[in-house]
């Protein structure tokens, strides 16, 4: 019962968070979750890189957003809270919480130009907020407004987590010893291995070309429930760079969705996957390359490559979806910014048309989605001049797909000024938009079958 018990408690503990993990001091992820699935494997690097140089004690909080230390987009900040130090009987526990603050679209070539990069930095130590450090970060020209106040409020919430953990330990006498944790991770690994091996084994290959010119080549091998993804032959990065941790995360996320392992994201299940990325390829990017495009388009492309290869190994009736998305930032007078993300899968769930219209000079004309085909069509008009920045992928060419799949259409972002024809925009860029201009977004999310798929 110990494994289930540990899982239940960890799941309850992380329940209020969207993206978070419980890990031990060695960096082993014991339970994790995220609305961006590729992020969960990165928590290990976050813990390792933070605790390697910082002697954090129970209650201390370390902050980082570095994509090259297990992070994600720069606007997604990792807070690491030490819950319990290791002891002879316990591995020590750490809570990682990832929260969004003031997201922006700022495409550029260097990470440091994209936004404020924070390597692992203590912000709360020995019951004290590290005010000078927080103030220094707030002074950075790329630091978002209100950052300092936001950090203080998150730190207060994390203090509550610490108290709750202590209360759990005291009241329930938590039996989480090192051998029990190892057993839990072994069980998880065994569970994932069985799930994968029962659906067959073999080899698959795929190739995906991005609009920015990079090409992914993947050889996927599944044997005895273990998965090896080899990206040998993948091109270097031109505009798109993906840190290796995120590449691993994207591969695991694709596997997890395919084999229905979403509830079990821990180091035990992660260890069923080995990923090889040649030095110099864009899936093994190094600082100081900007990571935003990689984390958006690169992750989507890796997941598509994985899904294509998986379908050569395992016969399935599951639809083949693209994870590609369009990000759009409109900057209106007085620096009012509207950042929106569009995917045929999830767009619209949380979008309030009335709220957007009340906040920004925008008027929606149409919003349609076909859930079966995962396609989306949106039109809206700008009522004031603005600067438009956008980033998407697969607008130039559809990926080369194995039979029976075919890519019949591509994503489109178009504009139309009064009295003129629709003009197609490239996959990324920025431009000035005149009032009265209509923007049209058409995205596809699912590849069609050219023939009856094997079942």
């Amino acid at each position, binding site marked *: 019962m110990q494994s289930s018990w540990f899982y239940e408690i960890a799941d309850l503990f992380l329940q209020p968070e969207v993206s978070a993990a419980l890990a031990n001091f060695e960096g082993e992820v014991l339970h994790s979750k995220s609305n961006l699935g590729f992020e969960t494997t990165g928590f290990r690097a976050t813990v390792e890189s933070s605790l390697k140089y910082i002697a954090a004690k129970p209650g201390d909080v370390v902050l980082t957003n570095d994509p090259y230390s297990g992070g994600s987009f720069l606007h997604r900040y990792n807070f690491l809270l030490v819950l319990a130090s290791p002891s002879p009987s316990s591995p020590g526990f750490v809570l990682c919480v990832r929260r969004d603050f003031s997201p922006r679209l700022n495409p550029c070539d260097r990470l440091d130009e994209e936004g404020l990069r924070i390597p692992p930095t203590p912000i709360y130590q020995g019951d004290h907020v590290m005010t000078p450090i927080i103030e220094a970060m707030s002074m950075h020209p790329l630091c978002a407004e209100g950052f300092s106040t936001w950090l203080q409020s998150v730190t207060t919430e994390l203090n509550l987590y610490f108290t*709750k953990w202590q209360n759990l330990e005291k*009241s329930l006498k938590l039996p989480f010893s090192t051998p029990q944790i190892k057993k839990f991770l072994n069980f998880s690994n065994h569970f994932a291995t069985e799930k994968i091996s029962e659906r067959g084994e073999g080899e698959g290959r795929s190739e995906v070309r991005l609009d920015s010119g990079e090409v992914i080549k993947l050889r996927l091998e599944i044997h005895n429930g273990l998965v090896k993804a080899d990206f040998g032959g993948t091109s270097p990065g031109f505009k798109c760079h993906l840190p290796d941790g995120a590449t691993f995360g994207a591969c695991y996320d694709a596997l997890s969705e395919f084999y229905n392992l979403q509830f079990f994201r821990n180091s035990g299940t992660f260890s069923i996957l080995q990923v090889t990325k040649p030095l110099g390829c864009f899936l093994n990017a190094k600082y100081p390359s900007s990571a935003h495009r990689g984390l958006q388009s690169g992750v989507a492309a890796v997941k598509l490559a994985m899904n294509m290869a998986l379908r050569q190994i395992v016969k399935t009736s599951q639809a083949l979806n693209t994870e590609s998305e369009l990000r759009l930032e409109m900057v209106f007078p007085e620096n009012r910014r509207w950042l929106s993300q569009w995917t045929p899968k999830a767009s*619209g*769930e949380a979008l309030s*048309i009335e*709220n957007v219209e009340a906040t920004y000079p925008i008027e929606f004309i149409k919003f*349609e989605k076909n859930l079966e085909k995962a396609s989306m069509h949106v039109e809206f008009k700008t009522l004031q001049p603005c600067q438009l920045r956008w980033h998407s992928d697969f607008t130039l060419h559809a990926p080369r797909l194995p039979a029976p799949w075919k890519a019949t259409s591509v994503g489109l972002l178009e504009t139309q000024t009064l009295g003129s024809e629709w003009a197609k925009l490239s996959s990324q860029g920025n431009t000035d938009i005149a009032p009265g201009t209509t923007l049209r977004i058409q995205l596809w999310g699912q590849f069609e079958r050219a023939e009856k798929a094997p079942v």
Partner: protein
Amino acid sequence: VTSFNNICKDIQGSMAVAESDVILALYVGESFAEAHLSQNKKKLHFHRWYLGKDGLKGGLIKFMQESGIEKISKAYVASRFPEKVLAYRLGGSVAVLTTQGFENWPGTRQPLNSKASALSSMDLLFAVDERTTAAGVVEREVGDVELTEIVEKLKQKQAKRICIHFLNAAQNSQNQQKVKSLLQQQGFEVFTPDQDALQPDEAALWRKNILNASLSGTFEEVQEDVHTALQTHLPEGQRAFFISGEGQLFDKENQHRLSSLWGASHIWARGLQQKSKPNLPFEILYLGLEMFTLLHPQKKNKTWQSPWGQVQSDRVQSHPLALQPTTAIELSPWNELSFSRTSIGYEPGPMFMGRGQLPTLLDLWGAETEGILGLDDRRSPQGLQKFKNQLWALNKAAAQPIESEDNLQSSLKQWALQKLAAELILNCESRKIICLGALAPLFGAELKKRLPEFNFEILAETETASMLGQGH
């Protein structure tokens, strides 16, 4: 926006209760109903019954007969039965008119992984060529010809209830009013979103509107059952009042039907707040037969995360616990005995009640349900034995089975209580917990032992319904 306190004052003014008045308070759950008769806040009669056996009307008639009371002054009803309707049979004949270009919004805005069937049938979604801007300027008025055509289509589809969802109608309802008036003239029942709600997402209001419309038919049936059962007992011409999640009393008003789901929690929170010391925060742990939930009386939820997406709902903040009375016991992915994520309800219910096929959390306490109305009379020795056998068989299939039957049941009980305790530690913001509900005496006492740092107050099982009739 009318404040809650003002509403209460209005209600109290027009509906004050005299000391001699006999009050009926009725709590209708998905599978059980509880009725409480009181006079001057003193219990006259109380009963809880299984709806699957006696039904609501039959059970209520029987209750009144057994009480020996002929006349009552008022009847108050809090109900959770809409939940059952939402789960099994959403009303079919609801048509939706939406601003053109956005008419497919129920699908567009539905969460991707939702397993719920669509909120509205595609062939009952209609586009209307109209538009009002965010500033409240009517850019396009509804044309008379188009309106006539729509009415024809609605008649062809035999739609009875119509929801109107026009963008920015809260800023200027001119188009909405025009369509509403015409449809009402044509005999349709028309539902429009709450104009005063401080809700930033129109879809949350629109979903609530559709759900209110979809619940209408069944809600009216239930109201009719209550009315028929109480007709001879209530003063002539008076009907029972239902309680909304905002604490309003209603009967025919169709905009409160969905929020009646949270009516009871509102009254409990208000009643206990009035009784407790000022500035002494507390939480309510509701341990009913059908649901375990933690209520934060001082806080409000503005939305309900429904299977169709966010729904506007101004209600007392609640946190349903991970373990529920009818949570199934199963083998986990680690091949260990554990509690599932699904609650199976009472149809057929826990095994100790005789008809159930799956072991549940409540089965672990099956032998200790003596005296708990609704369970006591349904407990069967065969059911208890069947549960023991099935749990033992499940245990044998586990990777590391527990050696003895006694240890097996006590370990699982221990584990369930630990998990419930963990959830209280993680979610309670105060040190005082007031336990309420039919299972409060059983589970509340166990939790009190495990969590000495909390100050537990366990209320009698009759209080659940009793409070519904007080303070109006």
